[in-house]
């Protein structure tokens, strides 16, 4: 496993604006067990920034530091130029937070939840009612305003969470695995609303996820594993570092096939979830040769462009999904 963070290509930027979020050498450990090691990264204004990693990668710890719930053991984190360590009050004013588990009160209505949230942030009556009307409209929740939150579907509850997090017009919106427990369709819906709102509200978004499909939709991502930053860049940039194609083979005897490919073609392969993967320059050219040579051994063969999953595999030596199941 490569421990050092690899910055793929620094974005050629002419902006003079300082980053909205600056994490410098942040570390956090729970009773001698490191949860985050010497993490440094910057998030620029307007970015949709993804923190991708499996469970235990440290992304939730990072989220808790960013949202001012815990203090970093070393280093510091600045949000809109204020330190989370010394100036949590100002940081809290400028962030909106959406937690992994519901922070809405299920026994209150949608409207009551939003009113309470506004009071918590000291919004004036007038501003609060304008903001509520606006967000209910943007999130198509108007006809649900009087419903108890417990009576809403998971997808709708998440949408209300989004409205709640954005109610006080924060500069930075932090989301911790916001689609946990949602089915794929509701998850897509949520991301559609998130993308729409971040443009409407001009808010910088930082979202943690263990799903590559979600990370794909981010402008830039940081990949964490076991408390270390293993890659950073836009999804496209990161996938480019692998280059070429991925040829995936399914076989009844994958080990045999693996050995034979290594002997005949001198191409290294990885066996993942019963699938044999080869990273090559031109996948399409290789297919006829493979099928000719191992016709009896191959059940199916596919060529695809590298995914973030492949990036993760290459950087860490193990699968992202695998660790989730384990």
């Amino acid at each position, binding site marked *: 496993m490569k421990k050092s963070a690899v910055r793929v290509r620094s974005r050629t930027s002419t902006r003079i604006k300082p980053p909205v979020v600056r994490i410098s050498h942040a570390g956090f450990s729970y009773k001698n067990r490191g949860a*985050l090691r010497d993490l440094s990264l910057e998030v620029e204004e307007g970015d949709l920034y993804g923190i991708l990693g499996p469970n235990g990668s440290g992304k939730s710890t990072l989220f808790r530091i960013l*949202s001012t719930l*815990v*203090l970093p053991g070393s280093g510091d984190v600045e949000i809109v130029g204020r330190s989370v360590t010394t100036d949590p*009050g100002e940081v809290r004013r400028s962030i909106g937070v959406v937690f992994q588990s519901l922070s809405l009160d299920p026994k209150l209505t949608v409207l009551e939840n939003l009113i309470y*949230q506004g009071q918590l942030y000291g919004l004036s009556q007038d501003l609060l009612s304008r903001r509520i009307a606006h967000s209910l409209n943007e999130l198509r929740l108007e006809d649900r305003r009087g419903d108890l939150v417990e009576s809403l579907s998971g997808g709708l509850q998440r949408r209300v969470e989004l409205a709640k997090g954005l109610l006080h017009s924060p500069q930075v919106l932090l989301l911790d695995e916001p689609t946990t427990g949602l089915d794929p369709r509701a998850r897509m819906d949520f991301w559609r609303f998130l993308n729409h709102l971040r443009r409407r509200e001009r808010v910088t978004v930082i979202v943690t996820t263990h799903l590559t499909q979600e990370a794909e939709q981010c402008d830039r991502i940081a990949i964490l594993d076991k408390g270390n930053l293993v890659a950073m860049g836009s999804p496209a940039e990161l996938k480019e570092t692998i280059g070429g194609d991925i040829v995936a083979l399914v076989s009844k005897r994958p080990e045999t096939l693996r050995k034979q490919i290594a002997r005949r073609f001198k191409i290294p392969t990885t066996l993942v979830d019963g699938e044999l993967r080869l990273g090559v320059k031109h996948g399409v050219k290789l297919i006829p040769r493979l099928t000719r040579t191992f016709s009896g051994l191959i059940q199916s063969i596919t060529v695809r462009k590298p995914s973030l999953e492949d990036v993760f595999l290459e950087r860490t030596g193990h699968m992202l999904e695998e660790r989730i199941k384990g």
Partner: protein
Amino acid sequence: MNAVTMLARRELVRFVRQRSRMIAVVASPILFWIVIGSGLNKSFQYPGGPEEISYLEYFFPGSVILIVLFASVFSSISVIEDRREGFLQAVLVAPAPRSSVVLGKVFGIAILATVQGALFLALAPLVVPNVTIGSLLLTLIVLAFVSLGLASLGFLIAWSMDSTQGFHAVMNLLLVPMWMLSGALLPMSGATGWVAAIMAWNPLMYGVAAARLGIYGLDPRHEGDLPAFGLAMIVLVAFSLITVLAAIWTVRHRQRG
């Protein structure tokens, strides 16, 4: 201030929407009172106390305090999950001062506990002779302070807990014994030396004493082995203040990794 009223109001709204909670809190102390009170009626002796008092009558103020204890403490349990995966998560990342988190929650819980205690207190004319409106109001004030102290004590304990199981352990090992040794069940004058010594240091003993004296409208015939009403109130106020401040101090603390 906004955040305090918001959090307190939330407690009340939630309570009204989950009426079953009240049955749990009020029913068992009433049952206790009737069963234990009637069962021990004949064998009860109160050295130094008024002679004509029955156990059912003696046990009445203690039962009111038990309701307040259950109400405060059961409401505090919600803090444990609320803070880790509920509404309080969002409160903690908001710019509202930490003290308002504690005060809002504790006031809300204390109001509910006082109201539930008051409902039971309304039965007083059935058992206590010569109850007046004045003595009931005095007792209500006592209940409010007992509730405040117990709500913030419950909050303080809940805040340092990871699980509700842990809280139940504390409930059984600390809070229930605190009530048993408060003069609610048995008078201090009848207790052996070391038990009486513990009772003298138990803040809840002052709560039960103040409630008992309150119900009788500070009638000197009922002073018996009890501390003076003024002293009891001072202890109650001090106890509430200390627990509230301790809770605020705990909530201010952020874990450092």
